[in-house]
């Protein structure tokens, strides 16, 4: 690896100042599971690493009933799936953080890092989109909020400015009649990159779908929100027909490529299968039935 300098700020202010000073030559280090690998491979030219794990705002998990979850960008997966409140309120998030890498990777990798890495196949991103999460982004100049679905702009590229840092993710409190799920397909049973993934959430009302959100992984240049799939659910009876229509819409919206992980045709098929299976699970979690 080329020479780097290492900083470990312990306040958000110091962290933002480091990025203000070093700009594009700095990268945030949370779990390092993508960053260090890419630096070793010579894919990143940054020469400053800012370890953000001592910054309180990036390392908190805070749930406020009626408001929602504040998830620090650097919180590692194991702390998320070990948190009883998150287990209870956000099972779709648990789905994804317990399948990223394996046990050791989960000891390091963070949801914020997974999002910032902006891989189309990131497992944490579709459930965040499905759950309506937003990003709290800060710099010395101030703060702004970005919906997760707008955060990734291309493979490996995100909406952060040179001096900005992702501080936390904010997930709205789930309504009681809602359910969500993330499913992905991999050839092995662990330690793999999604060939395709589907994160979904639904809200039920009187046996019907009140609303739904569907987001896909690994079938476009960025994680993909599919409004047509959500629209196929809204107002429809909560059974298999609407789910099938949403799954078909997901397949139609996918723009997959063929690569070593699967052909475009295969990925299209997976979108339909995974969306269907994820919606079935989400309905079950919402307390509904498939009729």
């Amino acid at each position, binding site marked *: *690896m*080329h*020479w*780097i*300098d*290492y900083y*470990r700020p312990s306040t958000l202010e110091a962290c933002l100042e480091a990025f203000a000073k070093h700009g594009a030559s700095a990268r945030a*280090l949370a*779990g*390092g*599971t993508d960053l*260090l*690998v890419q630096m*070793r491979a010579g894919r990143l030219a940054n020469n400053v*690493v800012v*370890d953000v*794990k001592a910054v309180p705002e990036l390392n908190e998990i805070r749930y406020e009933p009626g408001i929602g979850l504040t998830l620090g960008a650097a919180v*590692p997966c*194991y702390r998320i799936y070990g948190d009883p409140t998150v287990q209870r309120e956000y099972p779709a998030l648990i789905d994804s953080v317990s399948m990223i*890498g*394996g*046990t*050791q*990777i989960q*000891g*390091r990798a963070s949801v914020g890092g997974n999002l910032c890495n902006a891989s189309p196949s990131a497992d944490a991103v579709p459930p965040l989109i499905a759950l309506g999460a937003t990003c709290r982004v800060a710099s010395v100049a101030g703060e702004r909020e970005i919906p997760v679905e707008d955060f990734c702009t291309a493979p490996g590229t995100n909406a952060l400015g040179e001096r900005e840092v992702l501080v936390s993710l904010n997930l709205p409190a789930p309504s009681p009649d809602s359910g969500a799920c993330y499913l992905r397909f991999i050839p092995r*049973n*662990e*330690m793999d990159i999604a060939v395709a993934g589907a994160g979904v959430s639904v809200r039920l009302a009187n046996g019907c779908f009140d609303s739904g959100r569907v987001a896909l992984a690994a079938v476009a240049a960025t994680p993909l929100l599919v409004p047509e799939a959500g629209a196929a659910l809204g107002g429809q009876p909560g059974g298999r027909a609407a789910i099938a229509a949403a799954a078909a819409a997901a397949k139609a919206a996918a723009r997959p490529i063929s690569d070593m992980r699967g052909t475009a045709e295969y990925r299209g098929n997976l979108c339909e299968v995974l969306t269907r299976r994820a919606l079935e699970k989400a309905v079950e979690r919402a307390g509904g039935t498939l009729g």
Partner: protein
Amino acid sequence: MQSIHVRTTINGQAAEFLCEPRQSLLEVLRDVLRLTGTKEGCNDGNCGACTVEMDGRIVPACLVLGAEAEGADILTIEGIAEGSALHELQNAFLEGAALQCGVCTPGFIVASKSLLESNPDPSEEEIRFWLANNLCRCTGYDKIVRSVQAAAGKMQQETTS
């Protein structure tokens, strides 16, 4: 160029070292501190051979910078046996023939120890899930899983008797 001075705890002993900021914890353990029991198999977190415990949680040492060890509590394979007595997992791996070439063994033992501390009576499925980040190419895992089960049994006997 400037090296970083790091103060840490390794296998229960205070330790300090100098490292370059680009050096991983794995490089520091092996090349600086000469604790070569932690192995390198891939250097990108996918084989588990470099598994160590850091502040109570297993991590791939190749994906941690040496500088991050400041103030941390680190356990490596060299710290598993107590004095001259092997850990039950080490005994079980020997009696159960759970190693062939032995290069993945330190990672499996550190990871398994961490599992049994949080889950003293894991099912086969739980063992397989926990250890999926550790690759072994020699054994097909059968005797590793059985040895973890055997060690769990022994350790439970010890705590109840």
